[in-house]
């Protein structure tokens, strides 16, 4: 029995994980969500920008379809907050497959808030090069993005007409599934041009960013779906991230239960081996 448990067929584990994700999605229950300091810092910075006249925020979409489940709810929550506080938004993309996601999020949230393209927000589209795009924007935003994603000249859009460089943004947020925050935005952007920068990332990347928060290079961070749920709590609008906490909580408990089971069987197996060895010695 112990041997069978030690070498449990992984398909049984897969079945439990599947149930742990599927069943809570079909049920309705919730746990209170307590926002952490890192997420609260991002919220407060947006409130600070909103209190200024003509506040402008740059959002960089640096993720693809794979991380959309974690980062798209985060994007929606941020955009909902920015649109509600009437902050102007300029969106760019450092990943080619982020443009469609950025477009969907911007349109959805803008329509909800009654905001107008060109006046309240703009999507500049994708440019290849990562670090060089950031360097280019830092010196000459219009030269890097002469037109928006739909072909309109940057000069003709009210929201970008007065933007010369990254220094003209009051806040920059990078939503990243890869290394764009710590490998590109911080060394080539924040260190050079000294603008307030925050990051939204997948949960697995979050530990990477703590040194930069501690040093002040990032003013805050939203980590994974849990971070997005915290942000939804702060803005008072529960959406997909909050409902995603149900399956995430249950699945974490299931994985912990399996780990405990694995360790119990491991120790039982070790004790049995020790007993068998001592019996053989006596014999």
């Amino acid at each position, binding site marked *: 029995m112990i041997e069978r448990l030690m070498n449990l067929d992984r398909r049984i584990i*897969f079945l439990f994980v599947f149930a742990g994700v599927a069943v809570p999605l079909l049920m309705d229950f919730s746990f209170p969500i307590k926002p952490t300091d890192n997420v609260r810092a991002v919220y407060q910075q947006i409130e600070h920008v909103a209190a200024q006249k003509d506040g402008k925020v740059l959002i960089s979409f640096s993720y693809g379809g*794979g991380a959309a489940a974690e980062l798209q709810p985060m994007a929606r929550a941020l955009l909902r907050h920015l649109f509600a506080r009437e902050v102007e938004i300029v969106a760019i993309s450092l990943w080619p497959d982020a443009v469609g996601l950025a477009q969907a999020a911007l349109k959805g949230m803008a329509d909800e808030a009654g905001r107008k393209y060109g006046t309240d927000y703009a999507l500049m589209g994708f440019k290849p*090069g990562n670090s*060089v795009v950031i360097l280019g924007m830092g010196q000459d935003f219009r030269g890097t993005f002469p037109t928006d994603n739909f072909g309109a000249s940057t000069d003709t859009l009210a929201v970008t007409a007065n933007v010369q460089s990254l220094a003209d943004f009051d806040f920059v947020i990078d939503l990243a599934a890869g290394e764009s925050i710590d490998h590109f935005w911080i060394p080539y952007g924040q260190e050079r041009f000294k603008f307030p920068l925050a990051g939204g990332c997948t949960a697995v990347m979050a530990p990477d960013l703590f040194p930069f928060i501690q040093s002040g290079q990032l003013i805050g961070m939203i980590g994974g779906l849990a971070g997005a749920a915290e942000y939804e709590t702060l803005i008072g609008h529960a959406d997909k991230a909050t409902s995603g906490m149900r399956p995430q*909580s249950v699945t974490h408990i299931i*994985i912990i239960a399996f780990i405990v089971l694995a360790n119990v069987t491991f120790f039982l197996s070790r004790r049995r081996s020790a007993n068998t060895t001592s019996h053989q010695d006596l014999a």
Partner: protein
Amino acid sequence: MIFLRRTFPLILAFVVGVIGILVFYVPHSVAQALERDLAKWFMIIAAFAYFLGLYSLMTLHWTRVRARQPGWGYSLVAYLSFAVMVVFIVYNDGHGPFHAQAEAGGYQWLYLNVYVPCTSSMFSILAFFIASAAYRTFRARSPEAALLLLAGLIVMLGRVPIGAYISDVIPDAAQWLMAVPNMAAKRGILLGVSLGAIATSLRIIFGIERAYLGGGEE
């Protein structure tokens, strides 16, 4: 030929590398203009890499289809999928290929309703694999492993609302683990990796490291 394959790339790497370092320290407008131009050239080269990737992929799959290699049906699917996407890109919701990307249309529909679910599904497999890997390997074989296991359990519970529901100490403990010991370890690795990256970059700039030219030894 040797000059074009070996010597010229090395000279180019040295010159561009040194310029790239110097413009960081020189604020003069000439240096800044040079940096802007270099950035634009790099963006153009990076864009060409996409064409190169496309050509390589199409050639690979065509070879498989033509030679009827095992799994050639999947290569055919790759070609068909590519063709369908190209059709919708060219059609561009009725505006044609020379108009800027349309906001709606078949391309956007395929992207959001086919491509994104497919990639999300692949990403979601990780949840299952993490569970099976954790079951197989997260065993307290030693005191250090037990400590690591305990920290992992605390962070797993602390990062979801159920942790706070069980006890307020759990999310605070998880946050401390992330912000102190994890950050210290991460910073140490970051320092070491950054030094390694500087050393490798210097070797490339001065032509000591030539692996990127291909061919192993010089």
